[in-house]
């Protein structure tokens, strides 16, 4: 039932994000398909790549927002004593939040791309499903770290505005620093496909950058461990 609670808590945020991302991708691809941007007509693969660039920005904002909440936030709104009076540990509370969040993060990466597939099918444009799948994997597996950055910030700061503001700041800072000094290891570039795309064909390679994805997942696990540590030590 903790999962049920987490789901009810994040449902409005998740559904709003899902609708926005899906609608954006569907409209963007449909319009770009010759209605507004004829240059994409001949270059479908480039269109998919550009779609991923925009999607990543909105997806990261959405998953950081999904990471907000939890006990620290509950302390600010006054429900912490109800949650902490339950016969469960803080670890279980956090894990249920992360569990539900990961499922929502996957849906936020998958459904907008399914909308793209739907639009492509409607306008009868040929596309490679493997390319779409690769973009989804890069987005979800590579970008999970952004969700856990949000979770970590939410275990440190409880303010309704300060927590997301700080989380967005951290994400932006990580993106800027990695882009400036560690370009080949930038998570942002990994997720957008920028690190692995073939610039002549705009196709992602058959083999995804698994090492980069693995590194990003390890970083996500580190964020999770830090969140658990922070929550266990907290006195509230």
């Amino acid at each position, binding site marked *: 039932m903790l999962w049920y609670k987490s789901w009810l808590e994040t449902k409005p945020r998740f559904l709003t994000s899902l609708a926005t991302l899906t609608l954006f991708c569907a409209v963007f691809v449909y319009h770009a398909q010759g209605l507004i941007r004829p240059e994409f007509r001949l270059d479908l693969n480039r269109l998919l790549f550009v779609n991923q660039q925009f999607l990543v920005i909105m997806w990261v904002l959405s998953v950081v927002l999904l990471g907000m909440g939890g006990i620290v936030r509950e302390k600010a709104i006054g*429900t912490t004593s*109800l949650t902490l009076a339950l016969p469960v540990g803080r670890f279980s509370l956090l894990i249920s939040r992360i569990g539900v969040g990961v499922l929502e993060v996957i849906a936020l990466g998958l459904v907008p791309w399914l909308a793209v597939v739907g639009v492509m099918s409607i306008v009868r444009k040929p596309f490679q499903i493997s390319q779409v799948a690769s973009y989804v994997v890069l987005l979800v597996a590579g970008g999970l770290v952004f969700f856990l950055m949000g979770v970590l910030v939410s275990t440190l700061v409880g303010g309704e505005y300060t927590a997301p503001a700080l989380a967005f700041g951290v994400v932006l800072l990580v993106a800027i620093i990695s882009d400036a000094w560690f370009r080949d290891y930038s998570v942002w570039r990994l997720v957008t496909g920028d690190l692995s795309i073939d610039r002549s064909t705009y196709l992602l390679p058959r083999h995804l950058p698994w090492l980069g994805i693995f590194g990003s997942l390890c970083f996500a696990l580190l964020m999770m461990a830090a969140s658990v540590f922070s929550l266990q030590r907290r006195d509230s």
Partner: protein
Amino acid sequence: MTNEFAIITHALSKSYGKNSAVRELDLSVKLNRITAFLGRNGAGKSTTIKMLLGMIRPTCGSGAVLGGEITDTAASRNIRRRVAYVGEDKPLYAYMTVGQIVRFAKSFYPDWRSDTEKKLLYEYELPVERKVKTLSKGMRTKLALLLAFARRPDLLILDEPSEGLDPVGIEHLLRSLVTQASDGVSIFFSSHQIAEVERVADHVCILEKGRLLVDQSLDELRRSYRRIDLVFDSSIPENEFRFSNVQRIETRGRHMSVFVQSNADTVVERARRLNALSVDVSPVALRDIFLETVREEPERALV
């Protein structure tokens, strides 16, 4: 010894930086009793309750609830399984409906009483489909009480349970508390409504500035505190009545009121020796005992 106590603490303390919220609290709450936990705002009642439920860590000292150590993580979880708690602000998840929050709470307690749940939903007129955020303060209080009463707890801890309730609701609550106690549930509750406390409590603890000042049964308290109204033919110096058991003296001309804790006879005897025209000894209400107790505290702190 622990077996006869629902709650027992030893030198339990909590500090936030330099501020002490609870100071070396030695509390013992017996099983199968209704124990009132009184104190002014900021006296440390809620902090004590939160420590008992493992929500915050004590700075030092120890405590046990239903035999489980409050600082032991596994024992604390077991304590929370056996204790029903209604918090001061009646915290409820605003994003859930009444039905959802009942289902959610029910899932954690295998011995949930569905009959009580249905009965209270009906009696409290709680709309199952309505979101918690749209409920009035009184309805939220009723819902919080339902979540506590529908369980089969060994101990009920209630922080200001009547807050937000109308007189009918308060009456229902007090009757429910007595029923729960007669079913063998130990009750530990804080309240500012002393008239209500006086109606149901067996035992009273008074906390002031984090320290326990009174820990007595209500009957003992009533027996030991007396107000003695004296009338003399001329004004008498207060010093004549400064005994150790005298809590306060009020003088208005030839009239004197002496508030004593235990052994009123010493004051009566002195008054007669000073040829008092009238000596009237009367019992004291819990409200006055409480006010006297917390009024004394600044002087005690200076000692």
